[in-house]
């Protein structure tokens, strides 16, 4: 037990913070968010060169073979910078799901940066069914809110097959699949609607016929990663607010000297630090339970971290706008970018109420028979 980063982990954090701070901060986000693509492929290849796409890919498949604490470190820094990129969909979702399944395919290409990818499973809204047809499968259904759903090279889609959850891989454009990017308030994320109308897939497109358990594990690990993103972004909101209020003079003194302002910043610091403890705790549990351990401990930690950090991020972003006063309401200042991102992130992979209800069930609130004894 040592709940502090190792030397290697500190190096990863330093390198990420340095690179993101120099190349991929909010100014970069503003540039790419006005484009259809929503990210800069050339800059993304630099991130690939840093090894980030191979972070959690096994070394045998060309990756770094690291774990979910390291993923949390990168996600936290990306949240702080608000870097719009394929990382979350490609690594935190797709590579994560493929490793949970012990899949052989695609991980090497992801690690090498040859393809971007996404996962359309329980994280998307809607349903897809698969029907076996002459040596292959036919997919029908509609999914909304698939991260990077329109731009990812590879779509891993979960579909109901014979009453179970199967996972299919779809490369590029196929007949019957319409991928439509959604215009969104938070322009740093690129969700899409995926319409499957008689999409014919070869048998080889099936990655796993019974992927339910592995996908549940992967989605919990992804929730931990998003919690870490929230931590970094919330802390950035706090830093912007402290800096701004120290410089803003009213009544002949910095507004940061007013207790009404200081106490709100203290509450932001409390929200940030408790969220960080939550995210790191959940990341350690994700590492401890491996690819097929007991999912309950991870479910509790992931739901705890996601619900806690998600709300903390929104609260911090909202307080940041309030304490920036009028300029916090402008397009020019960056606070609104985080505020919109916080709102969007809270709903991704289940909102706070959903996760708390899940915890309520898992800690035994429905075991009423036991209580009656």
């Amino acid at each position, binding site marked *: 037990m040592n709940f502090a*980063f190792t030397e290697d982990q500190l190096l990863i954090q330093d390198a990420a913070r340095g690179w993101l701070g120099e190349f991929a901060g909010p100014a970069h986000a503003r540039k790419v968010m006005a484009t259809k693509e929503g990210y800069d492929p050339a800059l993304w290849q630099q991130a690939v060169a840093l090894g980030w796409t191979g972070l959690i890919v096994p070394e045998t498949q060309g990756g770094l073979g690291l774990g979910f604490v390291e993923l949390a470190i990168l996600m936290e820094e990306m949240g702080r910078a608000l870097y719009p990129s394929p990382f979350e969909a490609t690594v935190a979702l797709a590579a994560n799901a493929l490793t949970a399944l012990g899949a052989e395919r695609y991980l090497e290409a992801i690690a090498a940066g040859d393809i971007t990818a996404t996962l359309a499973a329980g994280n998307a809204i809607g349903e897809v069914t698969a029907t076996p047809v002459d040596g292959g499968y036919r997919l029908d259904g509609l999914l909304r809110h698939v991260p990077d759903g329109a731009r990812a090279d590879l779509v891993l889609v979960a579909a109901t097959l014979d009453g179970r959850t199967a996972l299919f891989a779809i490369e590029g454009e196929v007949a019957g699949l319409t991928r439509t990017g959604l215009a969104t308030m938070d322009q740093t994320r690129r969700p899409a609607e995926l319409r499957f109308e008689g999409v014919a897939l070869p048998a080889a497109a099936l990655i796993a016929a019974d992927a339910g358990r592995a996908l549940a594990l992967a989605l919990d690990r992804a929730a931990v990663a998003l919690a870490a993103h929230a931590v970094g972004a919330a802390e950035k909101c706090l830093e912007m607010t402290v800096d701004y209020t120290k410089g803003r003079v009213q009544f002949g003194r910095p507004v940061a000297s007013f207790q009404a302002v200081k106490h709100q910043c203290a509450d932001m610091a409390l929200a940030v630090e408790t969220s960080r403890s939550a995210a*790191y705790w959940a990341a350690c549990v994700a590492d401890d339970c491996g690819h097929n351990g007991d999912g309950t401990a991870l479910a509790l930690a992931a739901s705890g971290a996601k619900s806690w950090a998600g709300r903390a991020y929104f609260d911090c972003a909202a307080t940041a706008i309030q304490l920036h006063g009028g300029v916090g309401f402008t397009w020019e200042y960056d606070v609104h970018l985080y505020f919109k991102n916080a709102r969007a992130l809270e709903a991704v992979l289940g909102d706070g109420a959903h996760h*708390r209800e899940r*915890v309520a069930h898992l*800690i035994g*609130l429905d075991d*009423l028979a036991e209580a009656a004894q």
Partner: protein
Amino acid sequence: MKLSFSAEDEAFRAEISGWMADHLTGPFARLKNRGGPGDEHAFFEERRAWERHMGKAGWIGVGWPTSAGGRGAPLSHQVIFYEEYARAGGPGRVGHIGEGLAGPTIVAFGSEDQKRRFLPGILSGDDLWCQGYSEPNAGSDLANVRTRARLVGDRWVIDGQKVWTSLAHVSDWCFVIARTEDGSSGHRGLSYLLVPMNQKGITVRPIQQMTGTSEFNEVFFDGAETAAENIVGKPGEGWKVAMGTLAFERGASTLGQQMAFRNQLDEIIAIAKANGRAKDPVMRQRLAEAWIGLQIMRANALRMLSQAGNPELPREAYVSKLYWATWHRDLGKLAMDVLGPEADVFPGEPGTYELTALQQLFLFTRSDTIYAGTNEIQRNIIAERALGMPREARA
């Protein structure tokens, strides 16, 4: 970064949990889960015997260095010790102020003579300590201490008043911050004195709290005396030493406190299941939130403790008091809301006032956000020291 424990850690866990199972029996069995915050008056003499029993077995000062007579246990063992102690229902410790505050302060700032003189009594469970900091006019503004001490021959002579002094009525010793330089004010001119409680010059008067019970006292010093050598640090260095003592409040024992919180939360959850409130969607959200909040409290404490070698106080340490105090206060209200109308009722005749444990929790946790730095002071400290915002104007 790793939260799991090693096989060697688990062996230590088996040792302490086995010892608790073997020893919290017979005359000590009824002490289980008693004597915690809000219940400190319960079974006092029996708990004093238990403290000595623990001392004999070497379970006092687990985290103290071996050179001071402790076990020198690594962090993971300290965490396990406090968690297993609380898991077994270990009673509220009567020696915790000596073990957690006075002892570590003497180890860090005391002379060799003071270590020889005072540490063994703490480690054996024989000497109980109390903390003489707050005064009627020195609460949040702790530096406004008025209690005076004058060196007369080979004795310090002390006059003044302390307040909110836990365990003063049963303690053998008190560490007192007193003003030793005439005309000084604020942090300057204070000294840190070790004062025997059993003497004519000291009067202890219990404060009856809103719970109806008395955990705290007023202590009056009227020509009270202590030997000239019973000063920790030099005259005038009292503030520095006192701040050092406060830092020890953030030790591994907070993990034990959290395990006690866990027992309280478990009781509330069991009641919610039994009375059907566990089916209410809003109550489910609140219970889950409390559960999550407690896990985060543990994670936050482990993060803080894992940084113990860092000379700079980490941010998670700055927020920990504000966080646990507010969480615990909310738990008290949650307990009442789960009980509904029955929350107000306790067994007994109208006119009596013997509260249940959860009623005590509800009322006593109102003090959590006040003592050891109010929530408002905590927010000032976070803003000023952790975030570097401008300091409050001081008179």
